[in-house]
């Protein structure tokens, strides 16, 4: 019996030494032994082979899938004016009594039915559909036996992911987080000096690198000459909390957010000891002036790190960029836009917070194949003359969407949880009324 436990202890020790030497030390010092690269090459080849096999077996279905993921129906992009004009073409305009015809409702009816069948917004709050299956159970809706080889590879994949990779990744993540807390607290004891800044940056980057290894993350950074500098604000599209790990692997940022309790709170408090982050109490978040002031103060202090903000305010599924909240664009600082695009083949990075808690989300991440993403640093942008915060925010949003190959939407990400405000309906009514009664409509001021 004792031998058994001695054996187990011995195995655990070997396991830890292996991890330490092969993964952690290279991560800490920023060089790579090529293990992850080999894994990724094998993985890519396997997935390509699987896709080919599935395609051969189900040529017709794959076509349906591919077409359908672009949308089910052809949306008429004509404006209300154009469509109603066409509907009314068949009759002369009456001199009195408004320009209403019974066919006007066709336009609204068709638009309504179109949105019931396929709408632009609700699909952004669930995971993206894949064109071809990537050998994960979670992305396959109805399992159909295709070939013995494929099923074997699929089974092997499950074993590798759950029994080898997941424990490894969980260990790394725990080590990374613990080291973050210990390291930043330790650095916090030093007096403010250049060494402290340098050490704090090193500790932060090191821990994020370990966490990135803990997710088998392969990150490609593009245009690194545009990296955010001190005194600026970095804005990026938001897909999941892992975005922070992705970005912080390549630089140090000051975080903004609400202080949480529990484990998150411990991490937050430790981090703020070594370098200034902007944490708010829950009550303070409601006071917009206070928030703006604190951000302004941070930005104006040129020794402090650039702030990292996700203006969408919520996680979107990485196929589109939704409305940017104007708060960060009112501060008047230099904005450094960053576009993040995950490759869905290797694992779905989107955090559907209504479906999964944080912990189950992280476990799902750790049992995916890997995390592959591209990060593009865009050139800095400033608010131009005569441009208000909303227009500036939209300009930045378009740049990010264009670079990342994402759809640029005007809708508010808050629609995930809240209903549409009545003012949207009023806008439609206003537009329509101007077509019916012309400019002498008695519109209420809004």
């Amino acid at each position, binding site marked *: 019996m004792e031998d058994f436990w001695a054996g187990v202890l011995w195995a655990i020790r070997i396991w830890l030494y292996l991890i330490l030497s092969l993964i952690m030390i290279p991560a800490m010092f920023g060089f790579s032994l090529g293990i992850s690269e080999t894994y990724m090459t094998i993985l890519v080849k396997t997935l390509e082979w699987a896709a080919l096999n599935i395609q051969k077996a189900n040529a017709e279905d794959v076509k349906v899938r591919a077409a359908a993921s672009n949308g089910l129906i052809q949306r008429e992009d004509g404006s209300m004016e154009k469509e109603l004009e*066409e509907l009314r073409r068949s009759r002369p305009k009456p001199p009195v009594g408004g320009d209403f015809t019974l066919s006007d409702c066709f336009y*609204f*009816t068709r638009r309504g039915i179109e949105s019931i069948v396929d709408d632009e*917004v609700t699909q952004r709050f669930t995971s993206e559909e894949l064109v071809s299956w990537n050998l994960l159970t979670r992305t396959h809706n109805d399992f159909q036996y295709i070939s013995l080889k494929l099923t074997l590879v699929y089974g092997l994949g499950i074993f590798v992911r759950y029994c080898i990779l997941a424990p490894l990744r969980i260990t790394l993540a725990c080590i990374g987080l613990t080291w973050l807390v210990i390291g930043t607290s330790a650095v916090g004891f030093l007096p403010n000096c250049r060494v402290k800044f340098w050490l704090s940056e090193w500790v932060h980057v090191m821990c994020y690198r370990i966490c990135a290894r803990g997710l088998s993350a392969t990150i490609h950074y593009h245009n690194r000459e545009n990296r955010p500098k001190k005194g600026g604000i970095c804005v990026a599209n938001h897909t999941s909390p892992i975005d922070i790990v992705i970005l912080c692997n390549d630089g140090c940022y000051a975080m903004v957010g609400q202080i949480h309790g529990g484990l998150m709170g411990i991490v937050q408090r430790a981090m703020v000891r070594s370098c200034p982050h902007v944490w708010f109490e829950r009550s303070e978040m409601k006071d917009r002036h206070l928030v703006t002031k604190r951000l302004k103060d941070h930005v104006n202090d040129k020794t402090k790190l650039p702030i990292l903000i996700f203006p969408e305010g919520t996680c979107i599924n990485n196929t589109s960029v939704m409305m940017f909240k104007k708060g960060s664009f009112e501060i008047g600082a230099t904005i450094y836009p960053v576009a993040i695009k995950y490759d869905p083949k290797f694992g779905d990075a989107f955090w559907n917070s209504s479906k999964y808690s944080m912990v189950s989300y992280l476990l799902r991440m750790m049992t995916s194949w890997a995390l592959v993403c591209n990060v593009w640093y865009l050139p800095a942008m400033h608010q131009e003359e005569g441009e208000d915060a909303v227009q500036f925010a939209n300009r930045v949003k378009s740049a990010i969407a264009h670079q990342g190959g994402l759809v640029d939407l005007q809708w508010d990400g808050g629609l995930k949880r809240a209903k549409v405000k009545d003012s949207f309906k009023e806008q439609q009514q206003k537009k329509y009324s101007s077509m019916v009664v012309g400019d002498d409509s008695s519109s209420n001021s809004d």
Partner: protein
Amino acid sequence: MGSSSSSLNNVPDGQQLMQETGFSAAHLLRLYERFKFLDKDNRGHLRSEDFEAVPELSENPIGDRIVGAFFLPGQETVDFSSFVRVLAHFRPTEKNRTRAGAQPEPANSRNRKLKFAFRLYDRDRDGKISRTELLQVLREMLGMQVTEEQLQSIADRAIQEADLDKDDAISFDEFRKSLEKVNIDHKMSIRFLE
């Protein structure tokens, strides 16, 4: 993914719906997935709250009316067959279909499309759009943007134009006559991507 017919087995009454509505198997499958997507609590049927979760529908002035068209009178839920049967009205009309006399009129014929639109106006289903019903729709579409007088004058003129038998209401025949020049197929159809 298996062959299309085996996936269609997951759709309740799949074959029958295909024949009734004229949707292809692929389209029916996609509509079923959309139905399941809207049915967030997995009940197997939709309630009006599920429709209200679509932001583009909430901003539509007659959104509530359109949602109401899915529910049979007195019903509070929509199952998949009813869902598809309503959507079948919006398939583009097939031009060259000649049908035997005994076959029922397809859902996407010009007449059925017109009837669907007529029912949006004629809420109480008495076969006529009364002045009150017309005022209701106008109020929904125009909101608070027009005064009561303007609304009345618009309704007056609309009824005057369409009402041929002078009973101060618009029957379905009068409705159809007043829209005979409109390209209904184009305006009340949704083109499904192949």
